[in-house]
């Protein structure tokens, strides 16, 4: 029996995974796509195309701007009609390539399975695939696959928790192709040299757990001394934010990532389940990351569904193709309701990291009025990082840098649990983010002052 430590605190938002048992539907026929050249954490891409160029599916149109970066590929075949500035998922203005689709989806002729023989060629292939973390964080995967030599991971941890309400894209990925999940895991174990894998998944997904067990058991039976016998499925307590990296590591391995540290500091490599499954597909086909699975849901959506769509489809076009709005959308989110980003325009395109698009009707979208903190301590009890959100909130609102430090503002993972449980409806996460910005600004100013002195 795998032992699980879980984590303290957390909350129980209603799952609302109404699409969980709906098979993924492939949607095509979009007139145009808009591909931002920064869909990942790290340096933006350099544009490789100009208006008028003809492109094919899988053709590289954005060259990585550094090691922590990921190339961008055309997700449709057609003509580049514009290279222009748009608003990226972080709110910053970034360059994007608009392609008018010819409707044919013709593959680029150079696309072929990559030749992978060792660790270096494996990491290089993943870097070329444009893969980023598909669970929402969008960190370039080849960077994760390259931990420092003195921090070689002993455990590959697959994040299949999918703890946010509504989202079922990872769940569908597991159910519809569990073999790809296992194949991807075995590739990473083999090429990176990790002896053991644990798949962390919330225990409210018994069908996915059974599907994973079935493929792992079959593989292990065929090759009893092979790596598949070192892959285990670890069911976890269903409690938000079970899928947060630090909570997941703690729950499955009992290890605690130090403040400001990364998983490799405790010898763990964490990859999202859809990310690892893509690795298997890519080594088989060589088709870069140009499509993704996502859950379209929310009270304003007419037909909630799990969809397989090209990256870059404007969200308005996507909703229309999937049945349209049932009610006027008040708020549209990239990602889940707890950590998702609200977008300001339906022209925003689907990006690689979008595991869900949620449209909330005007009633659900309403921002609640704040009232005074009554010190009920629900935020303190539920913080999975064991912080005191109400104290950070107060410090942030009076720009008290010292107290922001005292109460460990920078340790906040912005999971949203404190704001969710707050009976006074205080905008705690927003205030804590503001506090982090104050600390960043102060840190940026500090060395300059010294230089002047």
């Amino acid at each position, binding site marked *: 029996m795998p032992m699980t430590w879980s*984590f303290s605190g957390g*909350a129980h*938002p209603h799952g609302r995974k109404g699409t969980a048992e709906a098979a993924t539907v492939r949607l095509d026929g979009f007139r145009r796509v808009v591909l931002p050249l920064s869909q990942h954490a790290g340096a933006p891409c350099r544009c490789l195309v100009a208006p008028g160029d003809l492109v094919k599916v899988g053709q590289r149109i954005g060259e990585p701007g550094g090691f922590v970066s990921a190339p961008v590929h055309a997700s449709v075949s057609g003509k580049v009609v514009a290279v222009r500035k748009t608003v990226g998922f972080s709110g910053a203005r970034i360059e994007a390539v608009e392609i008018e689709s010819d409707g044919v989806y013709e593959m680029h002729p150079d696309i072929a399975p990559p030749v992978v023989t060792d660790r270096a060629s494996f990491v290089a292939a993943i870097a070329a695939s444009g893969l980023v973390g598909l669970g929402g964080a969008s960190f370039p995967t080849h960077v994760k696959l390259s931990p*420092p030599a*003195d921090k070689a991971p002993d455990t590959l941890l697959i994040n299949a928790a999918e703890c946010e309400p509504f989202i079922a894209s990872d769940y569908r990925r597991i159910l519809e192709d569990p073999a790809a999940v296992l194949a991807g895991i075995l590739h990473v174990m083999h090429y990176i040299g990790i002896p053991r894998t644990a798949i962390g998944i919330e225990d409210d997904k018994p069908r996915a757990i059974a599907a994973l067990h079935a493929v792992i058991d079959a593989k292990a039976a065929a090759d009893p001394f092979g790596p598949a016998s070192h892959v285990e499925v670890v069911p976890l307590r269903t409690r938000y934010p079970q899928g947060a990296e*630090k909570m997941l590591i*703690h729950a499955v391995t009992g290890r*605690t990532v*130090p*403040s*400001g540290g*990364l998983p*490799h*500091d405790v010898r763990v490599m964490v990859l999202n389940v859809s990310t690892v499954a893509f690795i298997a597909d890519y080594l088989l086909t060589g088709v870069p990351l140009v499509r993704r699975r996502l859950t379209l849901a929310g009270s304003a959506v007419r037909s909630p569904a799990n969809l397989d769509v090209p990256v870059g489809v404007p969200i*308005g*076009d996507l909703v229309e193709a999937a049945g349209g*709005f049932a009610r*006027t*959308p*008040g*708020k*549209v*989110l990239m990602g889940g*309701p*707890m*950590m998702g*980003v*609200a*977008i*300001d*325009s*339906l022209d925003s395109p689907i990006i690689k990291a979008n595991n869900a698009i949620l449209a909330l009707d005007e009633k659900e*979208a309403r*921002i*609640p009025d704040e*009232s*005074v903190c*009554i*010190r*009920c*301590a629900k935020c*303190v*009890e539920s913080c999975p*990082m*064991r912080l*005191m959100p*109400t*104290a950070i909130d107060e410090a942030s609102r009076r720009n008290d840098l010292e107290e922001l430090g005292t109460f*460990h503002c920078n*340790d906040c993972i912005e999971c*949203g*649990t404190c*704001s*969710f*449980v707050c*009976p*006074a409806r205080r905008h705690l*996460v*927003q205030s804590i*983010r503001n506090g982090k910005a104050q600390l960043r600004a102060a840190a940026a100013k500090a060395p300059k002052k010294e230089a002047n002195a």
Partner: protein
Amino acid sequence: MSTEARLLVSSSPHLRDRATTRTLMLDVIVALIPALVASYLVFGVRAVALTFVTVAAAVLAEAAARRIMKREDTISDLSAVVTGLLLAFNLPPTLPYYMAAIGAVVAVVVAKQLFGGLGSNFMNPALVGRVLLVISFPVAMTRWTVLDGADAVAAATPLAQLKAAAAAGSAVPGTGGLPSYVDLLLGTHAGCVGEVSVLALLVGAAYLLARRTISPWAPLAFVGTVGLFALVAGQPPLYHMMSGGLILGAFFMATDYATTPLSWKGKLAFGIGCGLLTGLIRLFGGMEEGVSFAILLMNIVTPHIDKWTRPVPLGGGVRHARSA
């Protein structure tokens, strides 16, 4: 294309739980109803009328204070109702109505609104009201009665009787006029309006714990410490745990949000402190009960307890030098 839709942009999370300040206060009100019913059965309709007076005075005082201070009205958060209920529960059932009303006004205006209102007060408003009344009207505040038919007749509280019986050398509950454990459970003895029936109070407390409106740390530590203290001092521990307003204080006032610590360790420390002070007052002080003063004294040190019991973040909180 439906680009005409105006979309709200705000920070995550975009989902909120159902509980609000108002529903939490409503939980407390619901939890106090069994004790109010018990009070009616033990002391008659006057106990209920007294409760009505303090609640009405508390709500009116809150509305008036907010209006004079030109702040938004807050009576709908129901916290003034809770203060009124708790004050009445800490008063003798025979107290003149005007005195009870004065206590309620002081509780809401002086102890709560002058410090900024709900969440900013540092002492439990109901207990401030009670202490003011004890000091101002010592005779009326210590006139204890039980119902004999339709008449209220003078009687001593269980702890006063226990003290007297212990001094006389034979403190056996249920004998020599000393109320039995069943009396303590049902509330058939002299005492404050809402403190007498341990059973009714525990029903309400169980409701609050089940709803997670309160956490168990402070009440358990409080009651447990009083029991231990009595045991060490050679007095019947259960008797001390079930009388003198301890259950009311531990579950309904040592759990007050604004005036008690935030972390579970802090709540535990708060409860132990309350228990020790209550024990000291009961066994070595001039009063028989001591719960109100113990809680108020611990309210004052709450900011310090919060400082001493700050939780350590997962990962240590000390910034880690990042490699790579």
